[in-house]
């Protein structure tokens, strides 16, 4: 033992290690558990109000850690008001008896009423928060953010689908867009000042439930009815690919999933989706509606200047797979495994896709929103020619209306 202590004294780092253990371990034992110190916020909603000095109403969805045998998670919606976002969050923290921790925040919801203003003002607190992850989703909703979170609370508690996951893979589809805080700011701070976020409306859904059953554990459903069964009206969050387009932080355009399909066909970047071709008649089909799944897509942009005006060629190469046929009176076995489209049908399909592509470009031109970021492409391609072209315009911000587009579509059937 004596030898052992002598050895320790000879090793100063060991003494230091023991001191460090004593200094850090014992105070750590007396500390409050972090789960009781911080409110774990998973979604945050911002609404504006006009109640005296208070301008903001902040609601958030917080996880309630509770011991239970099942797998269901419990969430609570907390709402507080304040003169700014920070103050409202402080009051929310006081309500809960915890500090508001945003490190696990996955979604920020904005009320539709806010979108006509510069929304960067409302998001300022969040981008200054170092703990916030870049992948936080930013969405808008048709009702108050508080109502949205109440619907989200039910979704998060009752199913394995979390509300933040609803838009996680949006940009894989031709009908939707990436909707993160990061992509919003990239667009707003970029040369086009255009950005997009997902629009998730809440819609009323009526459900019949047996009498006596609990009226929604979380208490946000509005029950009515009598007798043996009752009709519950619940609010459900719908992701139909609806998108809000912003310019300089303000909403300028609302697009539905089908409009997004037109624009995304011009922009590229998606992985999957479907295209429908109606009224196809050839040796195999008779007045049939064909739906093709997009298996692969490639976009190639080329530019040439004609009289100082950029002419952009958008070459879209799609690999399509027949996924659905609506052909009344025909036996489906005939064309389920082997199908051969006539040349004319192929031509019609290309024509249809070209038309959709042109419609997408028209939407961008009409609203002066360069969603595809042609600006960066033209600037990087030939800086001098492009800026000469911009300087020749009366309103350089409206450059998209002065661009000439040529489209070509190549289709492979896989």
């Amino acid at each position, binding site marked *: 033992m004596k030898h052992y202590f002598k050895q320790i004294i000879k090793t100063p780092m060991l003494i230091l290690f023991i001191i460090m253990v004593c200094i850090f371990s014992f105070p750590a034992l007396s500390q409050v558990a972090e789960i009781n110190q911080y409110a774990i916020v998973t979604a945050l909603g911002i609404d504006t109000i006009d109640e005296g000095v208070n301008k903001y109403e902040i609601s958030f969805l917080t996880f309630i850690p509770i011991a239970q045998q099942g797998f269901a998670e419990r969430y609570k919606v907390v709402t507080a008001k304040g003169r700014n976002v920070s103050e409202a969050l402080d009051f929310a923290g006081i309500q809960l008896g915890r500090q508001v921790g945003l490190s696990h925040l996955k979604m920020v919801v904005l009320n539709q009423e806010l979108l006509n203003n510069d929304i960067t003002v409302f998001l300022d607190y969040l981008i200054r928060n170092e703990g916030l992850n870049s*992948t936080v989703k930013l969405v808008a909703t048709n009702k108050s953010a508080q109502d949205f979170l109440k619907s989200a609370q039910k979704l998060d508690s009752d199913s394995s689908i979390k509300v933040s996951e609803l838009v996680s893979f949006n940009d894989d589809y031709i009908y939707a867009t990436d909707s993160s805080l990061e992509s919003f700011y990239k667009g707003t*701070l970029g040369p086009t000042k255009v950005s997009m976020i997902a629009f998730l409306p809440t819609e009323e859904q009526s459900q019949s439930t047996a009498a006596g059953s609990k009226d929604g554990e979380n208490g946000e459903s509005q029950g009515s009815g009598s007798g043996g069964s009752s009709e519950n009206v619940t609010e459900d969050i719908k992701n139909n690919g609806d998108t809000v387009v912003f310019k300089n932080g303000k909403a300028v355009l609302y697009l539905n999933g089908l409009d997004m399909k037109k624009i995304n066909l011009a922009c590229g970047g998606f992985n999957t989706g479907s295209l429908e071709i109606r009224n196809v008649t050839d040796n195999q089909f008779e007045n049939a509606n064909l739906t093709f799944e997009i298996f692969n897509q490639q976009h190639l942009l080329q530019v040439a200047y004609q009289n100082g005006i950029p002419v952009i060629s958008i070459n879209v190469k799609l690999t399509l797979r027949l996924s659905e046929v609506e052909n009344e009176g025909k036996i489906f076995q005939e064309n389920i495994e082997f199908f051969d489209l006539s040349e004319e049908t192929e031509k019609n399909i290309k024509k249809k896709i070209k038309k959709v592509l042109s419609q997408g470009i028209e939407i961008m031109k009409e609203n002066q929103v360069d969603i595809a*970021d042609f*600006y960066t492409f033209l600037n*990087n391609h030939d800086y001098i020619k492009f800026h000469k072209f911009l300087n020749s315009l009366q309103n350089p911000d409206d450059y998209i209306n002065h661009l000439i587009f040529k489209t070509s579509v190549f289709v492979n059937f896989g």
Partner: protein
Amino acid sequence: MKVIDRSITAWQTGIILFIILFANKILILPSLLYDGAKIESFFIPIILFCFDFALLFLFYKIKNKFPNQSFEDIINQYCARWVRILVYLAFAIFFFGKTILLYNVTYIFSKNMIYKDSGNFIILFAILPVINHLAICGLRVLGRTAQLFFPVIVGITLFSIIVGIMGFNSVPLFFQVNASQFFLTFFKHISPFGDTIILFLFMDKIKIDKGQWKVVFSLFGLACFLVVTIIIVFLISYTYTSFMHPFALFELMSYVKEYEGLGRIDLISMVIIIIFTYFHLTIYLKAFMASFHGIFNKLDWIYSILTFNLLFLVIVNFFVMNLEIAIFVGENILPFITIFPFIILPFIIAIIFYKHKRRRIS
């Protein structure tokens, strides 16, 4: 007190050089570079690494000419005493300035990203004893420890870069800066570079066998490649929002869409940043000790360690928790301190060396 700096091999030298080339470059630098010179800013580290390469080449030439002499002996042999003091004073200030900048940025990173409640005291308590111990143990112990961690460092750095490439989702806008903006940014961010000078301070301790120089040059090249890649991947991933992300290596790991599927992989980059910090601070402490010994060569080693710790504790308290002051000092004061040891001095040495060689030939 005796600090036994035993000789280190080519591999250990290369690994120490590899590690120190990451110092002050993988956290806040890429974001500041974008702020000043937009996407073209990735040329800045490439150019500055060319300067570092020139330094390494100069070291190779001098080492071959004076295989067993220290840099201090060489200066004493050709110059007056005051020149030696001036040169080593410049080295001491240069490395101390870099240490303060490094600690400050890492402290703010730790506080914001790892442990919100950590005070300066806790971080200092966790870092200072370890780096002091490692510095006292000597160069060979440092080299061997670095050798042990080397595969982990390379592995995690490569992993971070690969994950970062997964986050590419935008095309950057080129041609946004003019030459004056570019060169102003170049000058402002010269101070994180020039770490190759460390080799001169331990010149007599470095034993490189014939044919082993390729190891040192290869590891130098690998480190430059990885640092430049981290900066490029960061710039392309974040572009216009770079200013919102001050911790590059960490941010690379946190911006992937499949984040929720992969879990908190950014913890991996936290680990590597902490490992890097320990090594960087130790190497800077060793460099400071060697510089201090060059100024006061009759004083015991303990004085250099005490001076470093005292200055560190005093100055760090002015800087800590204030990233703005640290960035101001890093961009406006440190570049002037860096110019002499990094650019002017090697240039003078190269001219003297070249003239001496020509005179000998003639």
